[in-house]
């Protein structure tokens, strides 16, 4: 019996989870609440069944996530009895770092990159699982499944360890840590097909619904709370929208869509000609901006 493509991807991810847990001291799983995180958590539960998840789950909360995401996160943690750690960059919170005031680049650095480094250092995690996929962005297409980061969490794309077969080198020198990407070889379409096949719960924001948005610089930004400063002439309107990717609400653009089921989403993707990170404002700065963020320690 030969396996289907999804079965092969699932087995590969499970193998990676087990290998890293078997050979590291203090692993953690990064959980961003999005669809990839949902799939990642599902695979982790599969990898260690019937035992409990052998690591905590870390959410970096910028304070600007969609309200529905936070509610979903807490429900998932309860349902699967996971050890959930929520970390926010308190310095950034105290300084009221906001995507509106400080710009997306500075905000992302402080509330995501720095916050992540703070949490990894505070808990002394030596391995962090993440849901990044190689099809998302050209720099990610080049990254190893097990990606070694320096003491300052930097990624050096020019000196990556060779990574052959499923034989992983998980040895770390003092101060080093690793980022682990079990979903490296999955595509956005694989994620949705797998969500359908396994009936994995995802945040309802992925499904089309009438929501309050403003149109800004050609993007639809959802008015998730009253912190969104309206510019002169802007008025929130109800539109039938959904999100292809979920992040901080001020930085995540919605797509006009009527896809209200996973099957609709798969069909929509078949005809769509835009990449998923198209709705991510942080990748917009310039070509190569993801590589620069990763060199700084971004996931």
């Amino acid at each position, binding site marked *: 019996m030969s396996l289907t493509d999804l079965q092969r991807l699932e087995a590969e991810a499970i193998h990676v989870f087990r290998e890293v847990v078997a050979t590291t001291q203090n692993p953690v799983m990064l959980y961003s609440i999005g669809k990839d995180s949902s799939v990642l958590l599902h695979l982790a539960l599969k990898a260690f069944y*019937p035992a409990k998840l052998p690591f905590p789950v870390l959410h970096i909360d910028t304070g600007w996530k969609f309200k529905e995401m936070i509610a979903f996160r807490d429900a998932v943690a309860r349902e699967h009895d996971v050890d959930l750690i929520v970390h926010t960059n308190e310095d950034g919170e105290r300084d009221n770092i906001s995507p509106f005031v400080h710009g997306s680049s500075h905000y992302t650095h402080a509330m995501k990159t720095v916050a992540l480094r703070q949490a990894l250092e505070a808990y002394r995690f030596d391995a962090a699982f993440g849901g990044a996929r190689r099809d998302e962005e050209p720099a990610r297409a*080049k990254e190893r499944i097990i990606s070694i980061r320096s003491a300052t969490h930097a990624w050096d794309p020019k000196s990556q360890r060779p990574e052959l077969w499923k*034989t992983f080198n998980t040895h770390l020198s003092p101060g080093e840590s690793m980022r682990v990407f079990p979903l490296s070889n999955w595509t956005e379409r*694989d994620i949705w097909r797998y969500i359908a096949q396994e009936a994995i719960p995802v945040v309802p924001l992925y499904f089309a619904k009438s929501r309050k948005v403003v149109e800004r610089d050609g993007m639809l930004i959802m008015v998730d709370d009253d912190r969104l400063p309206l510019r002169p002439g802007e008025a929130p309107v109800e539109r039938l929208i959904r999100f292809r990717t979920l992040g901080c609400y001020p930085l995540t653009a919605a797509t006009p869509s009527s896809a209200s089921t996973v099957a609709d989403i798969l069909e929509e993707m078949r005809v769509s000609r835009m990449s998923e990170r198209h709705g991510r404002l942080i990748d917009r700065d310039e070509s190569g901006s993801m590589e620069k963020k990763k060199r700084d320690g971004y996931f």
Partner: protein
Amino acid sequence: MLPRPQDDVRESPAANKNSDARSLLRFITCGSVDDGKSTLLGRLLHDLEAVPEDQLATLATDSKRHGTTGAALDMALLVDGLEAEKAQGITIDVAYRFFSTDRRKFIAADTPGHEEYTRNMVTAASTADLAILLVDSTKGLLPQTRRHAFVASLLGVRHVVLAVNKIDIQGYEPAPFRAIVDDFAAICEHLSFATVQAIPISARAGVNLISRSEHTPWYEGPTLLEHLENVVIDRPYGERPFRFPVQMISRRDADFRGFAGTIASGSISVGDEIIVPRTGQQSRIASIVTYDGSLPEASEGQAVTLVLNDHIDVSRGDILADPVDRPRLSEQFQAHVIWFDAVALMAGRGYRLKTETDMVDCTITAIVHMIDIESYAPCLVTTIAMNQIAVCNIATQRPLTFDSYSANRATGNFILIDRATNKTVGAGMIDFPLRRALNLHWQSIDINAEARSSLKHHRSAVVWLTGFSGSGKSTIANQIERRLHAAGRHTYLLDGDNIRHGLNKDLGFTDEDRVENIRRIAEVARLMADAGLIVLVSFISPFASERAMARSLVREGSFVEVFVDTPLEECIRRDPKGLYKKALRGEIAHFTGISSPYERPESPEVYLNTLEAASAELADKVCDYLEANVICQ
């Protein structure tokens, strides 16, 4: 309760069902620099509409900035994602890209052509089913083409497409294509591909990639995509024996003990018998546990948790196997090794060896030969430089369970990890286990070490004193020899410094020479022990792997490691030859303890603390050990 998209599944159309039955093909594009590898993959992705519009917009900007194709889009920039790659116009690391058709999902890896990035090409080839080998039809087969063909074959890529590119520049003439096909057929006699499909293409113009070109009516084979969709990747022969490398022990509670791993080959059903080759213990499969419920059977590629009927010793690194068709169990084997590190590989050096789930210390005991990967000829060498491939003999500290790589890619591979830097410095493919050549040799000679030493009424031995320079090794060795001599024992003292005046006077102090220096001393000690003598060796010998190598040369039980433990501070204080002063001033490179490490023996036969006793007393301690455990018959 969380909302579950179950309803969608029921509603999902039959089309969705079909796509789930797709198979997966992993392929690489390789070949010489500038033969158009990235352009080919970029073109394929573009023409299959697998490039989103916003990425095309970025491509247009990048093409203007870095492109080499004038006004047209530079397809290579779609896959060369790193800034350094765009700026230099080369591929540094593997880029993975994904696309699918109704028949298959494809994971494509675009690999670098430059020799210095061979490690990255090897990374991609290790998991590939098929290789597209690009050849520029205006240049023919280049050394790099031969190198990549060899590496792909060595790593077990079974199918190859010989994509003869830039056929448009040749005016679509068949002659250049046919000449290259003939040249490649000659190469293939040295390689082990299951299928070879040659296709005349133009990556830039999209000729014979997705649709057949009217310009090449003389070519009757499939287009590239047709071939990728239809090539049969399953192994032609029947099912392979069951292999299950254990990744971890799953313990939900005291009652549950499962072994988690991925089935490397074959299949298993509840009730089947398995063996743990390391111990020879057997048991039966009690259950096959997964998150989706217990399974009656499972097969190659599935990640499962196995529960056994009996409580036998199984740990991570063990391979559960078919008791009828077992893997090999040996502590010595021959393997093809690809070297990645800037520091060359030398025989005698020790590394960590990691298989899919097991890890053990190992020593490269011999470099059998290096393979010239352009002429495929073997050549004799003493070191293996970065990106070179060699056949090596390897000894592990305990027996390893494995198959030959040609029989099983998963249970026949390993990587080598440097103990100090933790870098992956090499990768290996196991050929076959080695028997202990030394034992065979001894059996074939009538008068052996035992016969010779019995004339002297003792048993021969190698007493190996290790410790810092100035630790007192020579003084103690000298006293041991005097005492043994007085007792009528036939001895010989090999002193590191003295040997450098004669046998090893051609050797300097480079890493390579140090390894050779110690190899010769160990071999001389072996010969003298074989002649029946009690050999005393006084030598800093800072590396555990080198001492292990010396130990491996002589009869078991006849090697006595003596650790002369004097703290470094004390050696520096004594400094009998003034060497530490010089080393501390930086005048001597690689000086043990100052600028080069000393690996303390973990379990020496005799431990001497020179701060607590005088040298005469310490010499007595060694002599007493020898008399009691080794020398007396």
